[in-house]
């Protein structure tokens, strides 16, 4: 059943409270949306409602981390990562063991429109040398990522969706940090996708089979550190690379893959993602509008491979 990764996060974090006494959670007046409320209900003494103060939340969490705690700080990604300079100094450069949890990523949040959509957050966070970036693509992966991050000892960014995501993985799924997750084999081209659009990319690839195109689909849950060796290998094996993300094509997954291939394995690429500001609409209509639905991805991939 489709579940939003923010819900998976909230459920898993509330469970981890019992085994991880060092975990503390901060929110900036969005705990009902980010689902940090689930942890707050079980462990109120370790939950800190900071009010609408993202700068101060980032700094206070850094101070907690420097005193031995493991803070998760939660807000809409654009609001918290938008306070980038504080993340850069107080978390990144201070080597504070804080996980920044950004929910409501991408145009798929829908009707609220651009002001609430994070479309640049991966690009910003990728520039910090010690920042781990994880974007899960379904419920199981999101929960595994939260478990991983609870024991992770470095600044991290977890990027989550507002919208429900279909299951991509079975019960036996094992999250392997920093490793590409191949969900469909293929030899004519490879699609690297991340987050909520992985499922659409997979469906597009499946339908393209009937048009004679055998396309590999790879879920990139760990954007930093990127699985560079796999990216190079897949480019060598297929000769054509497509990236799909609900984020700007500048600096996000598309940017990351292009940087690697430009240096190691020059390959023709098509980056599918956002090239303009977002707008209001239903999530479904917006994915059609911006070409991130199954048909939009299919059309762009077919055009690219012609």
């Amino acid at each position, binding site marked *: 059943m489709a579940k939003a990764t923010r819900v998976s996060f909230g459920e898993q974090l509330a469970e981890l409270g019992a085994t991880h006494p060092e975990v*503390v959670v901060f929110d900036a007046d969005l705990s009902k949306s980010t689902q940090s409320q689930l942890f707050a209900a079980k462990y109120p*003494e*370790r939950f*800190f409602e*900071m*009010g609408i*103060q993202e*700068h*101060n939340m*980032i*700094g*206070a*969490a*850094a*101070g*907690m*981390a*420097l*005193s*031995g*705690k493991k803070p998760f700080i939660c807000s809409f990604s654009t609001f918290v990562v938008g306070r980038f*300079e*504080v993340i*850069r*100094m*107080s978390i990144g*450069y*201070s*080597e*504070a063991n804080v996980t920044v949890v950004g929910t409501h990523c991408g145009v798929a949040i829908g009707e609220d429109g651009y002001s609430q959509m994070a479309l640049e957050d991966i690009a910003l966070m990728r520039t910090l040398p010690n920042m781990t970036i994880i974007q899960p693509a379904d419920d199981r992966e999101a929960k595994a990522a939260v478990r991983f991050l609870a024991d992770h000892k470095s600044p991290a960014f977890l990027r989550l969706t507002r919208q429900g995501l279909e299951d991509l993985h079975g019960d036996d799924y094992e999250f392997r940090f920093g490793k590409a997750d191949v969900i469909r084999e293929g030899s004519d081209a490879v699609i690297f996708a991340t987050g909520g659009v992985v499922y659409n990319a997979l469906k597009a690839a499946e339908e393209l089979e009937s048009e004679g195109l055998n396309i590999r689909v790879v879920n990139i849950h760990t954007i930093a550190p990127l699985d560079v060796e796999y990216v190079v290998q897949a480019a060598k094996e297929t000769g054509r690379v497509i990236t799909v993300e609900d984020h700007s094509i500048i600096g996000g997954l598309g940017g990351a893959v292009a940087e690697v291939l430009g240096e190691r394995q020059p390959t023709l690429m098509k980056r599918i993602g956002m090239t303009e500001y977002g707008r209001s609409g239903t999530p479904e209509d917006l994915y059609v509008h911006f070409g991130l639905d199954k048909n939009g991805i299919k059309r762009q991939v077919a055009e690219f491979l012609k």
Partner: protein
Amino acid sequence: MPALQRSANEMRIDIIRMLHAAGSGHPGGSLSLIDILTVLFLRYIKRTKENAQDPDRHRLVLSKGHGVPALYAVLARCGVIPHEDLLTLRQVDSYLQGHPHNGSFPPVEASTGSLGQGLSIAQGMAMAAKLDRKSYKVYCVMGDGESQEGQVWEALLSAPHHKLDNLIVVLDYNKGQIDGPTNQILNLEPLGDKLRAFNWDVQEIDGHDMQAIDDAVARAQEENGLPHFIIANTVKGKGVSFMEHPTEWHGKAPNAVETEAAIKELEALLN
């Protein structure tokens, strides 16, 4: 107290020597700050090499990171930095960065220098102490210029809400910033009234009177439900007559002649 004052003046000489050796840095705000740091570290924090990483140690976040020569000087006095290392300040292979970086040198506690961020970090440390029912204090030393930052006012609103009476802020109120006197650039006054309205326990003192600093910090040990704010009125460049100016010596190092003249003046204070 005369012994403390003498120590502070000896550290003023260290600061001048460091800045001259580095060829850049911030003498004005380091000299205004050193008396405050001397009292805090030698009388209250009592930092030693052994306790520098103790989880129960008292902590100090230097939010006005450009004053770091004063912090290094006092940490050298505490035996945490070998005295001879002070002259490596700002060199490419030194752990003494131009602004505090805890990754290079953990005893500075946090990375600061982008102004207005230290109080939030100190708030978080104070929250951690409350959560763990630990008795350590968290000190935050701020500048007046950086108090114009919005994030500072977020923390000023937040710390009393969380009843952080283990948090003690000392403002090095030297009345100067790069572009001019603070009250002309962006006036903070009436500062004490603003802070009291925000539910801080406020004291106002002469930030170069060692006894007054000591009395205020002693009073601020009280855990009465309110975070503590000590407005320490200071003079930028304090102790070197030609550096006592609100803007002139904010961010330039003394040349050889100025260094010699400054040290001569400071040595006279030791006798």
